[in-house]
């Protein structure tokens, strides 16, 4: 599962820890929502970065009080055909002001990379190595974008409408 960040394949510094496993000391961990919420207080004292996998079926607005203690948010694609995480990602970026790393995990495939980027993901945990290798090609397949989204690509609507979305990065 190669991890892509800003177009480069990078090492994943986060260790995924299941709810019933002990948390390793001194390393960045990516944990599930139940553990995160149950141990929120204890986690505040932790010296290493904490990331959470926020589930599709929980309103993303509920993450707001916890953003300060998170170093990574991962959103899941149980199937590439399940698009809930796109809305969650946009809300995180545009409504809740999350500027930290936002990772797409699960059934993450090449033909959705561009949609993910446009929705605010900046880390993509690709299922297939060949897809990861084709990342640039995939996200550069288009030069024309009709609608404004979370990314900085100029959209025809934005050009035509001449306004900038509040809270959009760049």
């Amino acid at each position, binding site marked *: 599962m190669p991890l892509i960040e800003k177009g480069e394949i990078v090492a994943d510094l986060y260790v995924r820890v299941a709810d019933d496993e002990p948390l390793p000391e001194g390393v960045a961990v990516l944990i599930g929502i139940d553990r995160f919420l149950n141990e929120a207080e204890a986690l505040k004292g932790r010296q290493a970065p904490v990331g959470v996998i926020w589930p599709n079926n929980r309103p993303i607005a509920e993450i707001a009080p916890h953003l300060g203690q998170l170093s990574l948010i991962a959103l899941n694609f149980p199937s590439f055909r399940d698009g809930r995480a796109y809305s969650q990602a946009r809300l995180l970026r545009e409504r809740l002001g999350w500027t930290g790393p936002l990772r797409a995990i699960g059934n993450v495939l090449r033909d959705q990379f561009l949609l993910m980027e446009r929705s605010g993901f900046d880390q993509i945990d690709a299922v297939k190595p060949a897809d990861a290798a084709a990342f640039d090609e995939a996200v550069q397949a*288009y030069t024309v974008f009709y609608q404004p989204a979370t990314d900085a690509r100029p959209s025809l*609507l934005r050009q*035509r409408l001449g*306004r900038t979305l509040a809270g*959009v990065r760049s």
Partner: protein
Amino acid sequence: MYAYDEFDRAFLAERVAEFRDQVGRRLSGALSEDEFKPLRLMNGVYLQLHAYMLRIAIPYGTLNAAQLRRMAHVARVYDRGYGHFTTRQNIQFNWIKLEELPEAMASLAEVGVHGIQTSGNCIRNVTTDQWAAATPEECDDPRIWAEILRQYSTLHPEFTYLPRKFKIAITAAGHDRAAIKVHDVGLRLHRNEAGELGFEVLVGGGLGRTPFVGKSIRPFLPARELLSYIEAIMRVYNQYGRRDNIYKARIKILVHEIGAEEFSKAVEAEWAAIRDGALHLTDEAIAEIRDRFIYPSFETLENEPAALTEALKDSRFATWHRNSVQAHKVPGYSIVTISLKPVGAPPGDATADQMEVVADLAERYGFSEIRVGHEQNLCLPHVAQKDLPALWAALEAAGLATPNVNLVNDIIACPGLDYCALANARAIPVAQEIAKRFADLDRARGVGRLHINISGCINACGHHHVGHIGILGVEKNGQEFYQITLGGRADEHAQLGTLLGPAVSYEQVPGLVEDVVDTYMELRAGPHELFIDTVARLGVEPFKERVYAAH
């Protein structure tokens, strides 16, 4: 016509290149069928019983002559010389090869035509009134707003993998020809008391397994707020629409389960957060889109010119004129419907030759514009009345002047089991047999306005729930059976039909329909009471008694 600019053309070329690459990866094995299927569907490519099928969008039902001619070319080169106009302002080619699809798409893209988002769980081709910008009834050209939505929804990063497909229809006329009440979102464009343009917004309508008439969640949305409000609806649906059961995934189920009021509240809350953002449409933005619609330079003409009055002495021309020609907003012009329902032919099919004839006639008599309506007929929206006799003669010669628009054999039918991988029963031959029973068009005219809709399965592509007579094919023990409903309608008074009685066999359907029609003829209050009004007045019981007594 909306004129594509360099951005639109670049986008289409990029889309074709992307699909060509995806087909290549599929053929090489880099993509599995499960991974490829949603990608091809979002380009309008289905795998049906006999072959791949390509569904091409006719955005808001508007085509120019060059585009229709290119469709004829695709039909001839890549298919079997004909195409099928659908109930959602699309055309389908039934015999296309996957290997050749990128070529066919590239050819279509050259004239600004594509199959993007004609399938898949995304925002589909936005449909509207085929008489847009021609009918005197409307308050604005609804296609402006359909085009704004087309642009907004095209490859939308957030809404490409919705729980299920999403269909939007717009009407700007009092008489709804776009069936907005049976769409996921229906938009009724009108002016408020202050004269401002805006939409009544309906959600949760739809046919299929669980039919609903849409519910109004906002009586007046200022037109410039269209996109932010639609985005709010889409965002609520994308997050909370059901994904556990494909049959419960449409927005209508969400609206039904939480109630229109709760749904509306969620939309309003989301909308409040985004309405002043980037999707707010400025007057300049709207004008920019509006300016790219090219309207005909109408001549100053009189209504009912001498050439027309003279031609009306020919009873055959006069019959066609009464049936297929409608009032235009500009004096001296008419709207002409071209029936694709010659008696005994597959409803909505046109050969490549016929497409070229219509393209030629549109160029000669109709400012190069062709329209497609959900009734599966074509339309020339702007024809000078003095040209009607010559147009009729040319249509007649091409087998395109059957004067049966809105009559009992102007039947709407899905492809059914003869083509479709989802179907349970045939639809086209049922339509053909019914049409033949009324081959005497004098008899059909005596019956008057009567819409028959046939679907070959519960997915309801033939919109049977809203047919004045609805016919649904089902399967029982390996045999085709058909359920009949009466009293459905798709217009501004939209309602779902009522089941007449037990399903009947394939062979029994035409006779049963004849009995229903005969019963109507006996029971109607007079020749001016339409079939649908007689059913509304009497209910289905008197029909049921007569029809089932006879069978």
